[in-house]
């Protein structure tokens, strides 16, 4: 290889330019902005020190949004992992009729977020909803805090399910067959085989899937917007939905930039923990 910096930069220019324009510069602007007082129309009124941060942490609504996001994550992450893992495990060996199921399991990919949210709104509409009728329940789904959160979790799973399942399935199928056969010869079978041999074989992909789901859960905003608008009674306002409310709806630049900076720091924290862990494995 001969050194050719000019040519290399030409090939890299689009990527660098876009990363600069839509990632590094805005990040810098948000970071600086979080220490300033800026008016709705973008006028800098002065240096704010840590005022924006202090004000945010005194804000009950923000603290609640943190709580709601954690609740969502705690519900979503294990459920999503369990269901996608189950789906992939069920179909990992091709048998009769698996082709049909394989297709059905990826159909959620065809549904876009807002279409699905609109369908969910109808399926879970009040006490007389179809879901209550089928399961004989009497829950006012989207009018009560916890049930509304559950509907949001179900919607979240629908949105992530197909892709996660596909990743796990291809990993299961790509596992070296000889290891499994060797274990079978040793007398391992059924669930033992699954948990001792097959699951560890895909653990890298599994942790990648869990990690992506974690990121999705903590960053969730658009499903909240379409399905619940943070309601009922502000009980499904997540951090990023709150960011949207403050930055765009209320024009509260202080809260907007401050949340942005905190979420970036938080995301960097999680990513470093995960990449360190993956290196250890």
């Amino acid at each position, binding site marked *: 290889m001969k050194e050719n910096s000019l040519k290399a930069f030409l090939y890299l220019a689009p990527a660098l330019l876009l*990363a600069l324009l*839509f990632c590094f510069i805005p990040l810098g602007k948000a970071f600086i902005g979080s220490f300033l007082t800026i008016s709705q129309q*973008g006028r800098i009124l002065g240096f704010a020190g840590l005022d924006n941060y202090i004000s945010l942490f005194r804000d009950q609504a923000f603290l609640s949004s943190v709580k709601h996001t954690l609740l969502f994550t705690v519900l979503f992450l294990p459920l999503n992992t369990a269901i996608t893992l189950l789906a992939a495990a069920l179909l990992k060996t091709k048998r009769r009729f698996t082709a049909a199921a394989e297709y059905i399991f990826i159909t959620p990919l065809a549904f*876009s977020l807002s279409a699905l949210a609109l369908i969910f709104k109808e399926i879970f509409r009040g006490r007389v909803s179809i879901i209550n009728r089928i399961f004989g329940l009497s829950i006012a789904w989207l009018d009560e805090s916890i049930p509304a959160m559950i509907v949001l979790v179900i919607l979240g799973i629908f949105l992530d399910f197909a892709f996660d399942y*596909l990743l796990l399935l291809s990993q299961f199928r790509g596992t070296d067959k000889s290891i499994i056969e060797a274990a079978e010869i040793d007398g391992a079978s059924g669930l033992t085989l699954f948990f001792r041999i097959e699951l560890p074989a895909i653990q890298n992909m599994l942790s990648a899937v869990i990690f992506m789901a974690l990121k999705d859960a903590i960053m969730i905003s658009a499903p909240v917007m379409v399905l619940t608008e943070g309601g009922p009674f502000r009980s499904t306002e997540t951090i990023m939905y709150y960011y949207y409310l403050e930055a765009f709806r209320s024009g509260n630049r202080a809260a907007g930039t401050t*949340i942005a900076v905190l979420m970036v720091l938080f995301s960097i924290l999680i990513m470093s923990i995960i990449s360190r862990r993956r290196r250890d494995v």
Partner: protein
Amino acid sequence: MSKIARPALIIILSLLILFPVLYAFSASFFTPQDFTAENAKLLPSSFSLHNYSLALSHRYFGRYVLNSLATATMTAFLRTAISIAAAFAFTHLRFKGQKILLPLLLSTLFIPSDALLYENYITIARLSLIDSYLGIVLPSVFSASAMLITIGAYLSTDKDIYDAARIDGCRDYRYILSILIPLTVPSTAAIFIQAFINSFNSYLWPLLVTTRPKMRTVQVGITMLGFAEEGEYGAQFASIIVITVPFLILLAWGRKSIEKALQGRITA
């Protein structure tokens, strides 16, 4: 797993997954009264294509679909092209700053773009790109993960081919187009498909940067059709079915290649 449990679980899971689809299909034939019936209905009281004719005669519905297809295709094309160019530079060329630029670009993986929504909105508006396809597409074109996947794929190709091609006087772009891309079809297809789906499904960003109905994407437009406000809930479901069915067919047809692409992504 026992012989009965496995098929039973598959069937239960399939039913759960299909329920929203089937319900939406059924509801697309509901009359307005079916929606407010004393007991929620599973099946329409009568069969009529009225809702579909309402949906299809909506002034902007077709335009929404077109906009979504266009922006998703643009995102997928541009992202793939940029990832290929960058990955080629990192894997096939030697240059000053290589050790700094790669980690710099990869560090964007750590930065959630949702948190920069406001700043990016201002940038796009200042560039006068509100209400343009470019405005919808541009902020999500560069993706560090797509670049990373491509780098992974190119690292596994044989460098001797490149050297041989160079000696034969083959220019770099020729080498990329006629050798590198054909060699790495699965990973290229994977990033293309992922970009397309991501872009097609994005909601918040297109909502922010479009102000005219003829520029809205399906995701945004479908919540603004106005059928529900008129009590024509059925037409809303008919519109959902109309935009979803082509994708269901596409999935049935392309399932094998998607799976293969993902397999490729892993082995890459």
